[in-house]
């Protein structure tokens, strides 16, 4: 396959270069994570341990000069372990809030399906509301705020899988995947001495990032492309293998993501390619397959691809 050069937005390119110094062959996942970050959404990473999920998030945090926090979800983790807790301060004679790890800029929620639904929903609520309420006090989360939750798809023993309705709090669902033989060799070579993450530096700061997030909102999306998004969403509702199709929230998510993706690629307008590329990542966790489809071994991604295949792309402008 011919490797084509992709044009990136200047700042984004710097970030990606940074990530490429650490990660090998994960540029697409990195770019997608940025899409979620810029669209002010969150990512659910579904993969086996050890493929570089933490490294990716850490590199991202470092490049963006962001505060990085990690929560390792365990069955005995309490909601307050996520949000924080008020502790009585004898000096001041009052309760003092001690923020939990959710109060970082970039939060890695590792193995989110290992903890109890109560704790899970504490995280998901925080993601949705962008603030936490402890003891009647509402504390806003830091900006920018980006959660990357991971899920182990192999072990189901003692897990609490996220209910489908809650999965759509995540803008994207990604998979890291194993590196290729050459890539893995490259990883070994690179990490033989020092880990390269120690050498990288921030390329943009938080304020710049917030500025970019605002700019993303201004990316233009034409009616034609909106039609395409709606066509895709309605396509999932009609597909025979899908029990529950994408909700309007899914369409909005797709549009937001597409805007961010367009921005990353240095465009101030969305094209159907953006939508088409993002659709599997945005939509696949927002549908429920029929039991027949599951029985036939179809995956959500396959079904979304089949929806894409059956959705025609508007390429003609109506002139009045």
């Amino acid at each position, binding site marked *: 396959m*011919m490797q*084509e050069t992709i044009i990136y937005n200047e700042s984004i390119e710097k970030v990606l270069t940074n990530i490429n110094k650490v990660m090998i062959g994960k540029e697409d996942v990195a770019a997608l994570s940025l899409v979620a970050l810029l669209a002010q959404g969150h990512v659910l990473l579904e993969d086996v341990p050890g493929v570089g999920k933490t490294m990716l998030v850490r590199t991202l945090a470092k490049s963006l000069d962001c505060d990085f926090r990690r929560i390792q979800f365990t069955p005995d983790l309490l909601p307050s372990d996520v949000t924080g807790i008020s502790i009585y301060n004898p000096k001041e004679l009052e309760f003092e809030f001690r923020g939990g790890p959710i109060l970082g800029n970039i939060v890695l929620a590792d193995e989110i399906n290992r903890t109890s639904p109560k704790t899970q929903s504490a995280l998901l609520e925080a993601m949705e509301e962008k603030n936490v309420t402890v003891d009647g006090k509402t504390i806003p989360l830091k900006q920018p705020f980006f959660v990357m939750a991971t899920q182990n798809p192999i072990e189901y023993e003692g897990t609490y899988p996220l209910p489908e309705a809650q999965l759509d709090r995540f803008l994207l669902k990604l998979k890291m995947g194993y590196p290729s033989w050459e890539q893995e060799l490259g990883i070994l070579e690179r990490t033989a001495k020092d880990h390269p993450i120690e050498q990288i530096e921030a390329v943009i700061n938080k304020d710049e990032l917030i500025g970019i997030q605002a700019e993303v909102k201004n990316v*233009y999306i*034409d009616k*034609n*492309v909106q039609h395409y998004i709606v066509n895709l969403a309605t396509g999932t509702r009609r597909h025979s293998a899908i029990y529950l199709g994408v909700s309007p929230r899914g369409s909005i998510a797709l549009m937001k993501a597409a805007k961010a993706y367009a921005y990353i690629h240095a465009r*101030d*307008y*969305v*094209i*159907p*390619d953006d939508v*088409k590329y993002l659709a599997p990542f945005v939509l696949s966790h927002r549908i429920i397959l029929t039991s027949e489809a599951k029985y036939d071994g179809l995956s959500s991604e396959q079904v979304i691809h089949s929806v*894409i*295949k*059956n*959705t*025609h*792309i508007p*390429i*003609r*402008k109506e*002139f009045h």
Partner: protein
Amino acid sequence: MNFAKDNRIPFLYTSVLYICGFFLFLEWLYPIQQVTDTSDLNVFILFAVFCFLVSMLQIKWWFSFLLKGFALVFIINSLFMTTYAFLSKLWFSYIFMEISFNINMLFHQQWYELTPLFRSILFLILIWLMSYLLHYWFVIMKRIFVFILFTIIYLTVLDTFTVYDADGAIVRTFIISFVSLGMANLFKEVDRESIRFAWTKNSWIWIFPLIAVVFFSTLIGYAAPKYDPQWPDPVPFLKSAAEQAGGGEGGSSVRRVGYGEDDSRLGGSFVQDYTPVFQAAVKDEHYWRIETKDVYTGKGWERSAEPNYETQVNGYIALDTFSDNVKTEKHDTVVEFQGNTMIEKLVYPYGISQVEAGEATAFLLDQNSGEIRTRVNNVDRSLAEYSITYDMPSFAIDELRKASLEDPTAINDQYTQLPENLPARIGELAKEITSSDNNRYDRVRAIENYFGQNGFQYQTSDVPIPKENQDYVDQFLFESKAGYCDNYSTSMVVMLRTLDIPARWVKGFTSGEKIADNIGGTDESYDVYEVTNANAHSWVEAYFPGIGWVPFEPTQGFSNLTDFEINLENLEEQDDTLQAPEQEKPEKELKQEEEKDTAPAAENNTTMKLDINWGYVAIGIGIIMILAFLLYRKRYQLRAMMLSVKFRSKHDAKTYQEAYHYLLKLLSYSGLPRSSNQTLREYAKRIDSRYSSDEMGQLTDYYERMLYNNEINETETKKLTQLWKNLIKRIMA
């Protein structure tokens, strides 16, 4: 050359394919001789062979152009221009004259006036073009089905609507088509898939099955029992449903009225043509005679002998159709030809004695047929104007009645000829009609009047042509009972002959229509008559020993223009003698009115076949086909041109969208369609990798910005137009 190492199809095979194309084309040429007046087809076939051969050899285009052009000139020269030295000054001026005349005629839509030379040139050019086109279709494109389809349509149409019998042709076409389709398909496949084909080694793999399939399908097709046509003959079907006469009577063809030469197959309908032929100032109406014919074939008229022309001295015409005993009156007339009708023969009244038409004019008389050819400077020419002195006869009826029955042997032999298979009922009818008459004149009159009293219809449309085994006269007398002058006059001659009365068939014109009265005559008034093509006519001459040939008019609605004198002394016979002419008088008036009211009820003699037009029709269709083909071939370029012109003047999004979508259409046509789920970028990538360029990408980028970002950048228009054009060129290549 060793062709096996690449995938090109060996010259041998493409040549075989091309030769198949040539044989198919020959099927187009064969019928031309039968359905048109083309006399020598071999010249055209030879030229076609030459053109196809030159095309096949794939020599440089300019050299092949020269070769073919020279062959064309050579053929034209040897066919029409032998009198002039080849490529001499005269030769060129003659050619120039011919061509300018014909072009003039073309512009005036006088299709009938085109000369044989010009028609031949056009036809040769058509053959030339066909040789090129078929080379393109068969060898380069290998798309031959359309041509085969057209060939089959052409043959079936000709078979149905003309005398051409395509039984053999359709079998040949079938075989050639199958062979060539099989080959072309294989070659196309080889081309498309870029198969390396060991041509010499594996030939039998495809040659044998192909031949076997063609052979067996032909054999089966040939041997299989065939149903008779399930549909009625389309010819009458296509005509009015209300017809009674034409249905199932062997078909008919529509002709155009006018004087013509060929009377060997009479019958069929014609359309009226009121083009003036000549004007004449005469004192009295009379027939304008041109020639007679003596041999009836059962289908039409021919001559018993080739004409034997004798040059007439000083314009004195030594033609005697009646004896000196007949009372005559001296008349003169001036005939002025009009329009473009070419009759290279003298049109003259009965009793012609002298013609004046300028010094260089010579008159050649064939005594047998009474045909007088006109020549100027030893070349057959149609005269523009001449004056005739003639002794207008007046036949005395009692003389005719008294005439003996002793015909000279020569006259009897020549003018009582009948075809051997003439149905007996014609003779029986003639006998029945004349049973009560005891002299020749009354018998002739009885037959002449028979038609007027027995329900015969004068009509020019829906007149059948006799079938293969049918007699023309028999069909008219007993079946159709409808027709025009040829039917009536021929029937009368044949009936007279069955009674052993010498009779012959005369062609010429009637007196025409009076257009001016009493013009400047000194003693007697001259009237000016205009004779048009519609006045072409045929009538009857019967022989009376001692008197000569006397004209008779059997056709309904026409009156005998010859004077008959009634002898008042013979009172006993007065009633009888009066009967015939008197009876005609009211009929004449009545019918003349009818003639005026119903215009088509005019005369026709030997009609000029519309079939002749097949030549032009073929040329016309050919030219239209070529034009249509070229337009079709170039349709994308033409559209591209139009769009680029539009795009140059208008830079709006709508135009660009149109141009871009046209590109998509074009790409789709050239086998690279965009599927509807493909984004423009993905598609552009595919196109660009196919053509190893980035033009589609650039154009798509611009279009995307326009489409999804409402962006229009007018500064880029020029560059875009160029890109767009380049890409179209690439696709077209």
